[in-house]
């Protein structure tokens, strides 16, 4: 083994020091080519390789890699689109949610406002009615008082008139019986005058 291994090492060194083109010239393999066949360049095989690789590249490129890469791109695009769509929908949902919450809050606020307004209006109405009732009762009372006053005045007048008539009647009777002097006459008319003045004063 050692001899052959060393030969292989020597061959490697020879290969490293020589250019591939120089090696192509010393092509020598086949029957009887021992270890140096390891480093001999077989142009036929090289051309075979290029041809096979070329055909492989053409067919695979056209019917394997291109559809595969296209499908992968389509799948990746689909996944990306799905992610984008999900994000969009999430944003939309959040927007709608915020909107609904805002509307809800607005509604609640409006309801409270309405309630407050209603309460206030009721209060105002109550106060107004109270005020009105109070004013009305005051008016009624006032009217009643004034009516009473008027009635009293009228009554006093009537009483005074009655009193004068009574006094006159009484006086007439009294006078018809014993009144005849001048002095008496003066006394009565003075008295009546005094009454009329007092009645006007009252």
């Amino acid at each position: 083994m050692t001899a052959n291994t060393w030969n292989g090492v020597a061959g490697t060194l020879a290969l490293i020091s020589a250019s591939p083109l120089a090696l192509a010239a010393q092509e020598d393999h086949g029957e009887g080519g021992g270890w140096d066949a390891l480093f001999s360049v077989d142009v036929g095989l090289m051309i075979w390789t290029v041809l096979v690789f070329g055909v492989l590249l053409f067919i695979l490129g056209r019917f394997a890699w291109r559809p595969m890469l296209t499908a992968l791109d389509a799948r990746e695009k689909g996944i990306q689109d799905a992610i984008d769509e999900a994000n969009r929908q999430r944003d939309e949902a959040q927007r709608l949610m915020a909107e609904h919450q805002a509307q809800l809050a607005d509604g609640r606020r409006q309801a409270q406002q309405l309630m407050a307004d209603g309460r206030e209006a009721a209060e105002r109405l109550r106060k107004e009615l109270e005020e009105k009732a109070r004013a009305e009762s005051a008016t009624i009372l006032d009217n009643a008082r004034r009516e009473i006053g008027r009635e009293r005045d009228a009554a006093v007048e009537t009483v005074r008139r009655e009193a004068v008539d009574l006094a006159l009647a009484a006086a007439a009777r009294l006078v018809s019986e014993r009144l005849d002097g001048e002095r008496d006459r003066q006394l009565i008319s003075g008295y009546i005058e005094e009454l009329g003045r007092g009645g006007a004063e009252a």
Partner: protein
Amino acid sequence: MRFLPLAGQEHEAVQETAEGGHAEAFDLGEMLSHHILNAREYEFPGFVWHMPQMDPIHLGGMTIDFSLTKHTFLMLVAAVITLAIGLVVARTISRRHVTAAPSGFANAVEAMVVFFRDDVCKGNIGHGYERFAPFILTLFFFILTMNLLGLMPWGGTPTGNISVTAALAIITFFVVEISGFFKLGAAGYARTIFFVPPGTEGVWKLVMLLVMTPVEFLSKLTKPFALAIRLFANMTAGHMLIFSLLGLIFVFGNMAYTRWVVAGASFAMTTAIMMLELLVAFIQAYIFAMLSAVFIGLMQHEH
């Protein structure tokens, strides 16, 4: 050193004597060269297929032999397998799995395709990677299949042949240079060879031109050369190791008890190395394709 004949019958004879207990007749080197080198016949268990041969073509002083050989045949097998896998998986994915990922084998292939598209092509070539993705993918899957064929029973690896790897590297070289030429234009492309570092003045321009031009030129040639040697050496070395370990059984074949110990150890070691080789088959195919993408990317973004 003796040049060993590659004829199968002779090898079988050697093996028979080894199995018969005459280990001194067993030549490990011959066994190795037989399994690793190219051949004009293919051995299956029970029979040997002598491949149809044709006369070499003489073309301008060069003798080109297009005859079928073991490595040519294996390469064709690899191409057929790659084609079948590619077409079937593409069909599965584009027909039935446009919206959801496939399962099983198609998913494994798809994972590799996606990895190569995103991390290798997009990462190294960048803008305009789509045009190179089929090339990189074909390189990877073709090389991978050839590498894996070497781990099959009665298989062999065409990528353990310098001619195959050199041809693949030359293809990469032309793809890199031609795509670079079209991308950069004639003047831009010329600057990748006749390189003057920016900021140099006067006579230094000429000096730098004289120094840098051979360097740039060599760097262009070194890249495919390194690609070819790396793949070839890795595959050959792995197979040499496997066959050397197996060969130990026959080397120690005439020792009464030691041979069992050696056989057990050899079996365990070979299994472990086989696992490693499985990894190497993937890694080397990946490296070849990845470096090709790197070289294309370097060329595309040269200013």
